[in-house]
């Protein structure tokens, strides 16, 4: 492309004069084209190109750079549709923080543009500001959709926009665009039939065309070819409007876009509309104008209606389907496929046929690790497996189209596998998927299944149950001992997915033991306490019991339509309740005695694998007298940590620490027992606004206490305050040592909590002197509220009770707490139970 000749270049070296000559030459070139009625796309592109050269020259002359800088054209300039008197919109991006040298550079760069008489709109940003881009000014986001490099470092734009969450940014851009269109149309009374239209702003004008193009660019580049007026009509409309606009700028000698009656005549003449009179020419011009405006309007309406919603990288929702924007790109990125199914589950819709066809065509090219290149992708699989309506349907699609088997080759081994027995009516793969359907149906179960549905809602990690269900029968590719083979195959998957120890433990337990509960419930005498005791020993803790119960229910039901009868459900539920009661009410009697055969295997392992700084004797001494469920609750590393922290812990000494556990927090306290200890700990957490979700307190006969609380920090105190955990621990220690009055700290919060409390269900307080040899057990089910645990445990301590063991659980809005109490070392008498129950009811009802 040749530069127009300029006399200034030839006559002198003054850079300002050279620049002015260049801009005047460029303007003259565009003006000439506009006069001929030829100021359309090509002429504007040429003018934009001339402007680029000037900007590049100014950038080069602005002085040395201390860091990477990029200058990007935005808006109409970015689209290379710069008109004669348009603003020149620029984005100047700095790679790092902007210092004084950079400011000097900016002055040197921008001032000459002003001197040239150009109107510039400039944004100056640092790349790191891009992380918050999704929250930026919506008009800036819109301008960014046309950004292109003019001078400097081109990569900075990708860095700038890449740091933010693209889907959110796209969605916000679209929302902003829709709002701006509505607002702009309202200014024109929502009609395109204006006698003196603004060719840029009016309905059917250039902004509407740009709006339709932007919607397509952000959602689906093929959109405008699929409906509305079609690409050709839009192309013609754009060319026409740009030519008219160029004439308007030329005639008005300023940024003017209104096609007034006077300018209509001049435009009609310049554009060569036929007619013997100016009026006839104008009529033809305006007839063409309205034809093009209607075409734009139709396409914009189509785009607004049919535009898919961006929901993820290369993913959109279109109608009731999820699809890839760019199928070719998706075909080579198997790690993105899971997101399509996740989006379908989230949106309660399906995955499009073209996505499924793409997966079917390409799945065979990939190895399992290609689906999970990072932790984010591995976590995404677990997130997908959370039971909810639609999970069976999506997993079935993944299986039918070859993705599930490529991703989890163990599952492929049972594809269409037929195992003939008296009961099963479906192939092994379908039986497996049906177990997951049965599980998801529990979430919407009627009254007859509500009890099981509630268990499912209570699970902390229901996705692990689904993962276990997926693997429980994979061993059936062989004919014998399928649960052993299934577990072996599951361990392969653990390695690939890099599951943590807890998840591995849970899934392997469920896979190996998945037949045990049906055997116990349907073939053993569950009225025999020994059967329940043995089963309790197998599951160990309530979470595993709930999972195994649900797994059994789902598994039996998936055998055939007739297998799971209400009668069997009753048997299963009875075993669940009896085992649950055993686990929560009788565990206090089952304490660790390293000499006992039942405990020896676990303790032997702990001792064998101990770190060098711990002796076997030390570990045994620590464990002696703790409830046996302690060993089920803690990993080896946690036990070793407890042993270390309990070393030489005298009266009054406290070991306390706070750790983050995903979205929750965990407080552990190891100390010596003292009156009101438990209520003080729970009260301090409440005084910081923490919502205690679950936990437990163990007290050994020698007075050593191990308490652990899981809580959510709803006010984000720990997140927002550096050192907040140390502050919490300091308050806790002060309260326990009697230096701080907890009642004063809690007063305001408790009053607020009582004021906000909604009428809920009546609290249940149940005293039990039968289930444990050593303790009176108090079970409390009440509406969860701030400070509830503190008030209950305080009432117990005030009634002279020692709180020896506690299990804390929160299920939805219900707090379910089990306290093991003694009074002066013995169980509570009937009179003492009545007195305590009365006190607790009073506290729970908020009475003084």
């Amino acid at each position, binding site marked *: 492309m040749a530069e127009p000749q300029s006399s200034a270049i030839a006559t002198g070296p003054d850079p300002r004069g050279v620049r002015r000559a260049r801009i005047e030459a460029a303007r003259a070139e565009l003006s000439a084209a506009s006069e001929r009625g030829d100021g359309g796309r090509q002429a504007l592109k040429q003018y934009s190109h001339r402007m680029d050269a000037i900007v590049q020259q100014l950038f080069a002359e602005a002085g040395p750079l201390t860091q990477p800088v990029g200058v990007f054209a935005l808006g109409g300039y970015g689209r290379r549709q710069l008109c004669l008197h348009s603003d020149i919109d620029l984005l100047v991006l700095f790679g790092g923080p902007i210092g004084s040298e950079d400011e000097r550079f900016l002055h040197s760069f921008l001032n000459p543009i002003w001197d040239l008489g150009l109107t510039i709109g400039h944004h100056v940003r640092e790349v790191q500001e891009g992380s918050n881009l999704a929250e930026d000014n919506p008009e800036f986001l819109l301008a960014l959709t046309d950004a292109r490099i003019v001078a400097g470092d081109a990569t900075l734009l990708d860095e700038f926009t890449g740091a933010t969450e693209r889907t959110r940014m796209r969605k916000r851009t679209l929302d902003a665009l829709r709002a701006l269109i509505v607002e702009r149309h309202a200014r024109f009374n929502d009609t395109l039939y204006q006698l003196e239209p603004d060719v840029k702003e009016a309905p059917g004008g250039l902004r509407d065309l740009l709006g339709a193009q932007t919607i397509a660019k952000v959602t689906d580049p093929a959109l405008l070819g699929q409906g509305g007026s079609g690409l050709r009509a839009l192309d013609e409309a754009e060319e026409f409007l740009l030519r008219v606009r160029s004439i308007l700028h030329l005639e008005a000698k300023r940024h003017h876009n209104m096609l007034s009656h006077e300018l209509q005549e001049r435009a009609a003449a310049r554009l060569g509309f036929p007619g013997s009179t100016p009026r006839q020419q104008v009529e033809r011009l305006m007839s063409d104008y309205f034809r093009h405006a209607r075409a734009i309007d139709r396409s914009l309406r189509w785009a607004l209606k049919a535009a898919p919603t961006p929901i993820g990288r290369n993913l959109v929702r279109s109608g009731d389907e999820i699809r890839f924007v760019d199928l070719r790109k998706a075909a080579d990125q198997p790690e993105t496929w899971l997101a399509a199914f996740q989006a379908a589950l989230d949106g309660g819709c399906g995955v499009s046929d073209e996505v499924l066809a793409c997966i079917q065509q390409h799945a065979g090219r990939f190895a399992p690790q290609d689906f999970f290149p990072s932790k984010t992708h591995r976590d995404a699989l677990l997130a997908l497996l959370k039971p909810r309506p639609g999970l069976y349907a999506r997993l079935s699609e993944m299986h039918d189209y070859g993705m599930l088997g490529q991703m989890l080759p163990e599952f492929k081994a049972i594809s269409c596998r037929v195992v003939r027995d008296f009961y099963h009516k479906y192939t092994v793969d379908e039986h497996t998927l049906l177990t997951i359907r049965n599980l998801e149906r529990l979430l919407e179960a009627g009254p007859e299944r509500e009890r099981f549905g509630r268990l499912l809602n209570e699970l902390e990690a229901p996705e692990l149950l689904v993962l276990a269900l997926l693997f429980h029968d994979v061993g059936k590719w062989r004919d014998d001992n399928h649960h052993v083979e299934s577990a072996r195959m599951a361990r392969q998957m653990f390695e690939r997915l890099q599951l943590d120890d807890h998840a591995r433990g849970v899934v392997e337990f469920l896979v190996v033991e998945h037949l045990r509960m049906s055997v116990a419930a349907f073939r053993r005498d569950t009225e025999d306490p020994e059967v329940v005791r043995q089963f309790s020993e197998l599951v160990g803790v309530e979470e595993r019991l709930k999972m195994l119960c649900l797994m059994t229910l789902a598994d039996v039901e998936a055998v055939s339509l007739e297998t799971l009868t209400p009668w069997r459900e009753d*048997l299963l539920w009875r075993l669940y309740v009896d085992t649950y009661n055993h686990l929560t009410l009788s565990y206090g009697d089952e304490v660790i005695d390293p000499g006992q055969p039942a405990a020896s295997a676990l303790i032997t392992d702990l001792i064998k694998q101990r770190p060098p700084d711990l002796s076997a004797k030390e570990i045994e001494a620590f464990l002696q007298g703790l409830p046996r469920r302690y060993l089920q609750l803690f990993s080896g590393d946690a036990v070793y940590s407890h042993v270390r922290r309990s070393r030489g812990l005298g009266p009054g000494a406290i070991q306390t620490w706070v750790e983050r556990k995903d979205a929750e927090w965990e407080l552990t306290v190891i100390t010596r027992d003292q009156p009101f200890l438990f209520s003080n700990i729970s009260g301090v957490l409440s005084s910081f606004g923490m919502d205690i979700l679950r936990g437990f307190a163990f007290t050994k006969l020698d007075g050593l206490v191990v308490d652990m609380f899981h809580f959510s920090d709803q006010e984000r105190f720990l997140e927002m305050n550096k050192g907040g955990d140390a502050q919490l621990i300091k308050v806790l220690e002060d309260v326990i040592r009697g230096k701080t009055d907890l009642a004063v700290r809690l007063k305001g919060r408790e009053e607020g909590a009582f004021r906000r409390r909604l009428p809920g269900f009546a609290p249940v307080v149940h005293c039990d002197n039968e289930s444990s040899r050593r303790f009176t057990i108090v079970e409390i089910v009440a509406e969860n509220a701030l400070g509830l645990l503190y008030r209950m445990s305080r009432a117990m301590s005030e009634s002279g009770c020692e709180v020896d063991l506690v299990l804390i659980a929160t299920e939805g809005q219900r707090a379910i707490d089990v306290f093991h109490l003694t009074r002066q070392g013995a169980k509570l008498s009937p009179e003492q139970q009545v007195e305590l129950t009365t006190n607790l009811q009073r506290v729970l009802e908020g009475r003084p």
Partner: protein
Amino acid sequence: MKLVKAIVRPNKVDDVKNALEKIQISGMTVTEVRGHGKQKGHTAIYRGQEYNVSLLPKMEIEVVLPDSIVDDAVKAIIGAARTGEIGDGRIFVIPVGESYRIRTGEKEVF
């Protein structure tokens, strides 16, 4: 001929079936039932709340036998189903007057 109807604990069905097979009795009908006798159900507690389990799951085994082997069958059932605890179940022996084969309509009078 007699109809022997035994109500037993669910976990005892296989034992009863095996005991009857040992004395060459193989045809039988097994049904899941709920009910209570002297056991009268019991009160269970779940999460501090009491609920009454009035109808307990049981299995009903029905077998029609010639009079000559009824006593042996009853002994076999008792031997297999007995735990000595409340809730072991009941056996009823009922006279059968006549029977019909559905396929042929043939009547058999005893």
